[in-house]
């Protein structure tokens, strides 16, 4: 949890991008109607080798997404952790099998952090499995998956509500301060979108890394990519009020610019 990256892409982001491009080739080879798991079998080997991955019950871990998404370019995905897993998750990877960039995020959590829920908003390009694999502090892998029917989420043009200040960070806490939604004003251009005015492809421009810290201590670090929706949004919920003040730092690719903001309980900006 101490990796830092000043001035150049962090090594793991570079690795993530490399994996993504290989995975994209694997995923696009899959042309079946139903969300076949061929792409997943390939990624599983790449990401986890031959390690056992168990599928746990709802009370331990669950993943929720709308079966037919109302907005393929902004589909909510919610992960819940409970029972044995609470406070024992050290890493979560979220994977959308049939997306051009299947690995949505790798999130490292501070061991012992009592996270009960993580919410993301993602692009979904076509009918696919959406899965989360959690690695526990004692080295077990637990997986849950769900299906989402969607079309074209990765190439949806920038929305009609785009605008605002690049890198602006907005905090939206729940009334009891046990949940906090963090939104980053950013187009998160996927590289698959077309500029309506010129007809040219819009180059990838996305948030590659999000770090959440408190009192100098890192609570969560996430490598992120183009499968996150425009205005990348992350929400974490716990059974206890979140520690405040809490600082968020987001890294831009390709500019490497850092956007930071600090939330203090009782404030929303």
């Amino acid at each position: 949890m101490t990796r830092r990256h000043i001035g150049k892409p962090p090594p793991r982001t570079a690795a993530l991008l490399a994996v993504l491009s290989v995975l994209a080739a694997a995923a696009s080879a899959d042309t079946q109607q139903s969300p076949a798991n061929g792409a997943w079998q390939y990624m599983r080997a790449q990401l986890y080798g031959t390690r056992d991955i168990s599928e746990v019950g709802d009370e331990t871990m669950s993943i929720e997404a709308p079966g037919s998404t109302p907005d393929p370019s902004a589909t909510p995905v919610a992960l819940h952790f409970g029972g044995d897993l609470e406070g024992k998750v050290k890493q979560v990877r979220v994977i959308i099998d049939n997306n051009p960039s299947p690995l949505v995020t790798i999130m490292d959590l501070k061991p012992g952090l009592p996270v009960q829920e993580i919410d993301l908003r993602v692009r979904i390009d076509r009918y696919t499995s959406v899965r989360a694999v959690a690695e526990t502090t004692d080295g077990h892998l637990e997986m849950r998956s769900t299906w989402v029917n969607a079309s074209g989420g990765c190439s949806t043009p920038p929305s009609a509500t785009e605008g605002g200040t690049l890198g602006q960070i907005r905090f939206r806490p729940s009334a009891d301060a046990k949940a906090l939604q963090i939104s980053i004003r950013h187009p998160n251009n996927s590289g698959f979108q077309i500029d309506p005015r010129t007809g040219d492809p819009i180059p990838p421009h996305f948030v590659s890394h999000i770090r959440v810290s408190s009192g100098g201590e890192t609570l969560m670090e996430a490598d992120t990519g183009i499968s996150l929706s425009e205005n990348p949004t992350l929400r974490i919920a716990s059974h206890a009020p979140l520690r405040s003040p809490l600082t968020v730092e987001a890294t831009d690719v390709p500019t490497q610019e850092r956007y930071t903001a600090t939330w203090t309980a009782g404030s929303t900006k």
Partner: protein
Amino acid sequence: MSYLRRTVPPWLRPRRAACAPRAALALLGLWAAAAPATDAPAALPVTQVAPGVFVHLGKPLGLDAPGHDDIANIGFVVGARCVAVIDSGGSMRVGDGLRAALRQRSPLPVCYLINTHVHVDHVLGNAAFRDEHPQFVGHAGLAAALARSRDFFLQNYAADLEAPATATEIIGADRGVEVGPDVALDLGGRRLKLRAWPKAHSDCDLTVYDEATGTLFTGDLLFVGRTPVVDGSIKGWVSADESLAAVPVKHVVPGHGAPGTDLAAALAPQQRYLDALLEGVRTQLALGKPLQDALRDVQPDKSAWLLFEQTHPRNVARVYQELEWE
């Protein structure tokens, strides 16, 4: 035509030269051979809602149902010099049908084809009017919106275009109306006033007002019976509705649903829905609720609306993303 005969002075009546070749062919018995009956598009049924104002009513069907190309209200307004078409339907077939209906009622040239916005059910019939050489008119943002949508239309609605479907069949506006003062189009003896709106139902909404009869074509700024689709800005739409309600009109033609004579009454259910949607999502945001909670919990009264289950969740997702940056 009865309208023309009744109200247009003889010196303003159309010259028939343009139709002479067709008439001559018909006399020779050649016209039928040149255009077999199976190829002749059937004229769409149209209703004259006010003198010289003809409307074809769209069907209350979903966007994936058979007949989905004929769901929007489309029509035309006949002046002394020429005709303006207002939206062309969701396919070449519907556009051809509208053109055939127009030709049953007027031989005048089509000088304008006005699109009220970019959505597929209003624009895909444009190509059916290409040979009429109208000026294609829309919101200043329509050309860009069409450019953005062209690939999507080709991928999803190719069967509604003339085969082989190409991007050139999806015709954009060659004249744009900016948000600001109304722009008048003269049809000879009657004027249409066009108003471009800030982002509302879409990002390129345009309304058309016929001064002669007090008829307002709202485009999709007004849905009657069919669940309103928020594709632009909920805040913009609520504000546009307030402005629209103040326009004195004798007849109103919504983008979807039955035409009427009382604009305020026609707007009321939509205003109730949009207000409930706006307030519902705002409340979720104020409570720090995520999108999936809003999708589950923002449930305005759906009893009055067609296609609510297919439309409302997407509205919630769009409105949530708009309002979270308030």
